[in-house]
């Protein structure tokens, strides 16, 4: 009856209900607290993780639906050293309170994986995560820097 969950390269056997939200399974069962709770209804994106490389808002993903998927959280994203996106986030001093930034970085990373040089409009259409501190101008600048850097995002 357990659910097999593959997170950041590790396989976990979990005794949880299939309709438990992935967000809370990550946070409360696996102690991966970098993924944040913001709204619970997919509206803010603070809980964004990668499921098979695609950005998904984990608060609204039943854990049973991703049992065989490859899940990456913010802890797994830069496990082998900071990514270009994370480095750009530091270079542009993006975060303020930082609470939404795991989700922002996950959402932006998934976008750049398929579209390495999005226009500002494409970026704005794709990244609908909410930041209450107002870091959007720096997010835009950081993404531009990654997109135009030699070799693009890695």
């Amino acid at each position: 009856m357990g659910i097999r969950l593959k997170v950041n390269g590790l396989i976990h056997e979990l005794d949880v209900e299939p309709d438990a939200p992935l967000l809370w399974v990550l946070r409360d069962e696996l102690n991966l607290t970098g993924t944040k709770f913001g709204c619970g209804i997919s509206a803010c994106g603070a809980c964004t993780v990668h499921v098979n490389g695609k950005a998904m808002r984990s608060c609204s993903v039943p854990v049973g639906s991703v049992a065989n998927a490859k899940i990456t959280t913010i802890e797994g994203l830069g496990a082998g050293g900071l990514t270009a996106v994370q480095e750009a986030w530091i270079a542009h001093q993006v975060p303020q309170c930082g609470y939404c930034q795991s989700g922002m970085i996950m959402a932006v990373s998934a976008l750049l994986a398929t579209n390495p040089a999005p226009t500002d409009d494409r970026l704005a259409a794709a990244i609908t995560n909410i930041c209450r501190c107002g870091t959007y101008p720096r997010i835009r600048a950081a993404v531009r820097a990654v997109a135009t850097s030699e070799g693009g995002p890695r």
Partner: protein
Amino acid sequence: MNRRMFLIGGATAAGALIVGYGLWPSGRMARANRLAAKSGERFVANWIKVANDDIITVVIPHCDMGTGSFTSLAQMAADELDADWTKVRAEAAPADRSFANSALAEAFLLDETNMTRDSIPIFVRGTMEGTLRTLAGYMDLQTSGGSTAVRVTGVYGMRIAGAAVREMLVKAAAARMSAPAEAFRTEMSRVIHVPSGESFRYGELAAAAAEYSPSSHPKLKPKSTYKLVGNPIPRFDIPAKVNGTAQYGIDTKLPGMWYGAIKISPVFGGKLVSVSEAAVEHNRGVKKVVRLDDAVVVLADRFWRARSAVDALEPIFDNGGNGNVTSQTIRDRHLAALKSGKIKPDHVTGIGADALKNDTVVEHVYNVPYLAHAPMEPVNATALYKQDGTLEVWAGTQDGLGSRAFCAKTAGIDLDKVTFHLLPSGGAFGRRLPDLWNFLTYAVKTAMAVPGVPMKLIFTREQDMQHDFYRPNVTSRFQAALDKAGMPMGWVNDYTTDDEANDEAHILYSVPNQAYGAVKIATHVPTGPWRSVESSWHGFFIESFIDELAHQAKRDPLEYRCALLKDKPRHLATLNLAAEKSGWGTPLPAGRARGIAMVECFGTIVAHVAEVEVPDDGVLKVHRITSAADCGMAVNPDGFRAQIEGGIIFGLSAALYGEITIDHGAVVQQNFPDYQVVHLAECPAIEVHIHESNAPLGGAGEPGPPPVAPALTNAIFAATGVRIRELPIMNHALGKGAQPG
């Protein structure tokens, strides 16, 4: 006593943070003071540690809520110390594990007279002694708000502490070489004997330096020799915020912890009448249903189980007699009070309202709605009430020490039985200030219902939004008497308030006769400070009305303002800088226009120029906001810009969409879709220009938002002829055929 006297007086006689609170309305200060549970409660201005290995640690008496104050404050201390920045660290005092069981933590949170020299072996004790120590005794609270960190803690604490420590290190070197102190200079964390070139690391002098008493009046550096202050140094906290390792209050986890989800009476003040636990008590993981006075909490082994159980409960609450209140009934009471003509002005200059008897009188009424803070981290707290009657609480708040006292009071136990762990906050904006601590109340009460079990209570976004302490709904009426040239000779302003009258209704403009005053309209809706506090509404009101007067006089709004600011060079320069950088007066494509507004609050002058476009379909587009700010000197210019940028976006969300409405006595909005905020797509191009002056350091966090709404509505008027006097903007039709105001 006026505001400025408070600032100066506090700085020399009342201790660092009491000065910050002195800037707030007297009523709020009194409420804050009540939170101090007993007279022994003390706050030490700041600490600086110098370790053997040269690492200098600046202990910050503020919470990390994202403003970058840990870095700015460390810059201020380290600059006076001539420290090697690569060896400087900052940490939050209560979270300092090396202090956890020492007398130092005790001193920080209890009473610094408990401090003994032995409890801090290699340590230079900053401002322990001398004037600041005496001053610290006045301090009841440890508050992060009011943009106080840099301009109060920094200016009156960190700089002096850093300079005092430097002097002690020099004395130690002088004693070691039997040379006069004047023969030494300091650089990069070394004391250098100038004649011989011999030098000592700070770390090797620290123990000897600790034997000296710090001077309460150390010699401070002249601004021209600053090396760290004024530089855009990267923030300490950012690396942990890009890799998911930053820990916030909501990340607290204790062995055997239960999770709580709450449902509070929808109508403020309503009481729990009944609830049937049977519906959920056999659910997997549910441990207990706790009935509180006005709420019900489900405790479970996991949060999602607690949440789905609380959602399944159907508690009955009464409405406390407020079931018929709506936003409209509150507005009607505002308008009736303003019309009554019985408002006594709090401030009068010249002949006050008598000026309205002559000349042309222009009158307009404005309104702003209730607003939620909606920080990204929903409010939460973890609490453990132990079998021995002690209480331990973990939470992100804007005042660790006050929180501890509040928890003690809530639990009805002595302060010394409470430990409070202050954790970083995922945004605050005022939501985590004293008197807004319902999340602590519910957490402590729930924990006391399950002694021995640690539990983490998390508000869902819906509960956070519906049980906030809102930026008040305020209505304001202006009347101006104009001379033949259209310049104001009389300025009369009556406005409603949920709290005490406040001074932010004062105007920057030179008008000979003025009268302004407040009428208190009490409602059952809880209100509290929201980023920029009173300036968030008075800024919109005043800067809208002055713009209306400029248009009435058929004069350019910038030029009209400048004509009324002739005796204020900093304001003129800031306003003109924003105007110049925005291209004020240069042509724009059809449908586009600019609007300008300037507000001074928390010691900083901020002017914004908004460039908007209103196409025929009426869908407003904000293209650009050009900002100029004078905060004296920006300790960390990049950090200052970040705060103003963020403040602009915070103000933009409020101006465009922000509205909490009341129906049947309860809040209508529940989550971000119906409490809309700005996303990346609506974020305009933003430029922030710093105007440097020799004024005392001003705030960074609070002053950005207030001029946003009026700059926008003034631009919308310029583009369309529609004058928006009630926020938010989204409630108004702007397209072709819209009603001009």
